[in-house]
């Protein structure tokens, strides 16, 4: 039995990344997403991850002042089903692909409306830049990555449905680069993730029958600090994490020169995770992420997300 639990703590570290990669939910309007990819951090050659999440917008944070929780007579729920794969292509390099299927539903006194479509695709190239060759009490294992988001789904600038229920994607090509550091001591693990992203300027031809609209979201960044504790008597890990996400204001303008800059956005994700390592090949995570616990938040929606992740790995 101890031989089974011996490598558990290392494998459980992969949950850290698993939860990181699935807490990046936000309303499509607000660009409050980060770009945390699912990485191979265990001693595996491939992994497939299925994630299901339900995110409910419970309030809005203005530029200034207090948050306003939405009326109980309305609900805005986004359900995401995400398929994610990663594979080693060499001893230290890996590639990954994530394909989400997203359903958005808006319910109010007027009734209910929903839309389902593929979400934005993302591909990732990652490198194990700081491998663990031997024991160290403090040197972490580290990865760097480059990720590209492809705007497959319709965005708020392309919506045609009343209430913009079909605004599911971000609308922009985005490149993000960052690093992930993992360290464990006996039952404990700590992770630190940081990334910066740039969303490229895009024009939306004929925005509502008007002239061309140009939108430039620009730069953003996010970080995750997480910690976990694994039971010695069972393959279970409890984790907590928090993640600030900052995006600069968007510049928007028409061909005629009409220009409107928007304000920057800041939101904090806080989360609790319960992970279960069923076997060295199979694992599952239940995660809760809340955007109301931590502040300050600014110019964003506030959501609560429940997620369940199932992962299959192929050890070396």
């Amino acid at each position, binding site marked *: 039995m101890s031989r089974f639990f011996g490598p558990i703590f290392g494998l459980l570290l992969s949950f850290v990344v698993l939860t990181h990669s699935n807490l990046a939910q936000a309303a499509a309007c607000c660009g409050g997403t980060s770009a945390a990819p699912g990485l191979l951090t265990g001693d595996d050659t491939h992994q497939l991850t299925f994630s299901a999440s339900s995110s409910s917008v419970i309030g809005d944070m203005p530029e200034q002042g207090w948050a*306003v929780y939405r009326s109980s007579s309305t609900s805005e729920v986004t359900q995401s089903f995400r398929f994610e794969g990663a594979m080693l292509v060499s001893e230290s390099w890996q590639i990954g692909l994530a394909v989400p299927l997203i359903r958005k539903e808006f319910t109010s006194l007027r009734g209910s409306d929903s839309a389902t479509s593929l979400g934005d695709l993302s591909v990732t190239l990652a490198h194990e830049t700081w491998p663990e060759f031997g024991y160290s009490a403090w040197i972490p294992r580290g990865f760097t990555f480059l990720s590209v988001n492809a705007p497959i789904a319709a965005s708020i600038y392309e919506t045609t449905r009343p209430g913009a229920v079909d605004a599911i994607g971000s609308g922009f090509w985005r490149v993000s680069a960052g690093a992930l550091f993992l360290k464990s001591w006996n039952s404990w693990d700590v992770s630190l993730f940081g990334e910066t992203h740039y969303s490229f300027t895009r024009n939306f031809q004929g925005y509502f029958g008007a002239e061309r609209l140009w939108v430039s979201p620009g730069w953003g960044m996010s970080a995750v600090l997480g910690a976990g504790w694994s039971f010695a008597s069972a393959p279970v890990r409890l984790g907590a994490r928090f993640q600030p996400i900052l995006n600069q204001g968007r510049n928007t303008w028409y061909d005629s020169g009409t220009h409107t800059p928007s304000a920057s956005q800041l939101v904090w994700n806080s989360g609790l995770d319960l992970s279960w390592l069923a076997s060295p090949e199979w694992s599952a995570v239940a995660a809760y992420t809340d955007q109301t616990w931590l502040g300050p938040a600014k110019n964003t929606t506030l959501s609560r997300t429940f997620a369940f992740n199932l992962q299959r790995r192929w050890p070396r």
Partner: protein
Amino acid sequence: MNFRILALPLFWIATSACGVSPALHHHSADTAKKESSTQPPTSTECPFSFPKAGLCASWTWKADPTLDAGASATLKFWNAKEGTPNGPYVAPSSAIRPFLWMPSMGHGSSPIQVTSQEIGIFLLEDIFFIMPGEWTLNIELKSGSQVLEQANLPISLSGAGSS
């Protein structure tokens, strides 16, 4: 008892103590007083001014804007020199394009449906404020995709429902 397990909630509490938590500092839309600034000012003689076209326009909600339902409104145009908000109404020589915009967010909402009811009077439907906050209601006069003139009014929408 293994007290190390207490470190996780302590970690969460320590991090939660930073900043202004929205959970501890918020209003509820269910109890918030509904904003009264959704109605364009009626005191002015020309709420929407289009000086190049020599037109004025007024905006009257038929169904008040809320997050609960799509709003509808009537838009009326008159000659700035000869007409009044009570008429006679005249049809703009160019197409009109009404749309919502949320300046702080840098995006708008879904398309507004426009139907001509009488000369110079338009019914606007499917006006959806997809989130509370500060919006602008924009009216463009355009030729093809070219905007000839634009006028707008600020609208403040609380998170309150229609009840």
